[in-house]
């Protein structure tokens, strides 16, 4: 389960834990996979990732900004968060249509390739910085990514 907050920063940029807990409980009760609530300029989204372990983990919001979106609230990054070391296009598998390098739930060794980021026609392998289990994949195959964009969570 993921809690995300964005929107106009409130005066104190703290996380409304109670609201997230309430929404998470509602998620369990209703069996929904996602609830989004916008109130006082703050957007809270709770979503269920059915294959991942239940783990509320605040994530930094993607940093693509345009004139209409205000700056995201700074939130503590997940300690197992892997962010993109470069600008490029991310691929989850070694070639189009091939099996992805890892899936949610995969056990990975340190140094194992998690994905490829293509920049300037060069395929850059992104290695796991430490051993662990892939608990979430935050990008789609073929998605453009910025520097420091969240890619994956490994625990």
């Amino acid at each position: 389960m993921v809690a995300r907050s964005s929107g106009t920063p409130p005066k104190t940029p703290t996380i409304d834990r109670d609201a997230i807990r309430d929404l998470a409980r509602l998620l369990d009760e209703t069996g929904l996979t996602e609830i989004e609530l916008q109130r006082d300029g703050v957007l809270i989204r709770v979503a269920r990732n059915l294959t991942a372990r239940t783990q509320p983990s605040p994530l930094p919001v993607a940093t693509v900004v345009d004139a209409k979106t205000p700056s995201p609230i700074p939130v503590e990054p997940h300690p197992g968060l892997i962010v993109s070391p470069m600008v490029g296009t991310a691929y989850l598998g070694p070639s189009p249509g091939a099996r992805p390098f890892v899936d949610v739930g995969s056990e990975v060794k340190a140094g194992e390739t998690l994905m490829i980021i293509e920049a300037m026609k060069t395929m850059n392998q992104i290695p796991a910085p430490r051993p662990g289990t892939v608990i979430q994949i935050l990008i789609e195959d073929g998605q453009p990514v910025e520097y420091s964009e969240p890619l994956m969570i490994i625990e």
Partner: protein
Amino acid sequence: MFDKILIANRGEIALRVLRACKELGIPTVAVHSTADADAMHVRLADESVCIGPPPAIDSYLNIPALLAACEITGADAVHPGYGFLAENARFAEILGEHNVHFIGPRPEHIRLMGDKVAAKRAAKDLGIPIVPGSDGNVGSDAEVERLARELGFPLLLKAAAGGGGRGMKLVRAADELPIALSTTRAEAKAAFGDDALYVERYLEKPRHIEVQILGDGKGHVIHLGERDCSLQRRHQKIWEEGPSPALNSAARDQICETAARAMRTIKYLGAGTIEFLYEDGKFSFIEMNTRIQVEHPVTEMITDIDLVAEQIRIAANGDLSLKQRDVKFHGHAIECRINAENPVSFRPSPGKIVHYHPPGGLGVRIDSAAYYGYTIPPYYDSLVGKLIVHGKTRDECLMRLHRALDEFVVDGIETTLPLFRALAREAEIIDGDYHIHWLEEFLARGAAEQ
């Protein structure tokens, strides 16, 4: 015309380029480091891409990241602004190899003018006047002494491998020459690993005059008059004006036409500036800048020509629709570069702007990426913004400058606004009677009085 332009820069020049793109109806991509996520150019662009961490070497100078940003956004042209990669020939070449247009001159001209010795030789071959001196490096001390007798004193001994004011020695008279030679050679050897020297006539109180050029790459070149940038501190211009208060129309026409003719010969493409020292009615080539310059608004204000839009049109169409007779000069313009620095010590003063009130009114232009609540990051240059004022005459322009400087409020950081208020009251500035050492002498007098 281009489908989408990626602006490979930050700060006020990124905003300046963005404005030209918007007026031409071209979508824009801003790039930024993690330190600039809240910057105004990022907010106002149609799309933005974070290309790296705060150090410029990993973000704004990172060629692979910029190319990848072009790829993921589909930008088909890059405007480099000034600084960073604007005069990097390799960058222009790599973009070309990836079918992305570089909005700037051809790589060969960037490379030629980037090499000081080659540029000076090229200028001489093109009929541009240069500082009298040795034609390249001088070998033996005897050769230097022979040259010194020819050129006369004062002379400047320069380390061939030096630059930015380092490795230079002023020699006022013949009896100083032997010691100056040995110490400069020893210093050059120690600092640059090369004791090769060259010799130039030293100019005592020259002015810095530069000519703005636009070319279509096929031999059609026009000039947009000159700017006088003689008020400098440590080779950094802080006050620029046009037309120069020191030139009469004959001298002006002569140097502008000489510069344009030389650029016709090499079929120069895009915007460029040829810089001269001017003393005793004689011009001497310093260097050529193959990019848009910080002080380009001075020229825009007296010609009503949008230089950045012209750069984009030339790069897109390979054509320059303006003719020399279309360029009409009117009035006078002065630009002040307001930096986030202590106005006395010039110590940088990054931080949060807690109050911001730019001046307005007729004939006042502010080119700045600052805003109320903006935090100036410590990683990049200290320019807060440029105040450019225009008047029908130089007198009117100066009165307007006084008024605009008094209106300008930037609180929370230190700025050089107080220095400009003081300069605008100085009799020699008002008379236009200053040279490239004037400001440092003025600052030294101020320091001595304290």
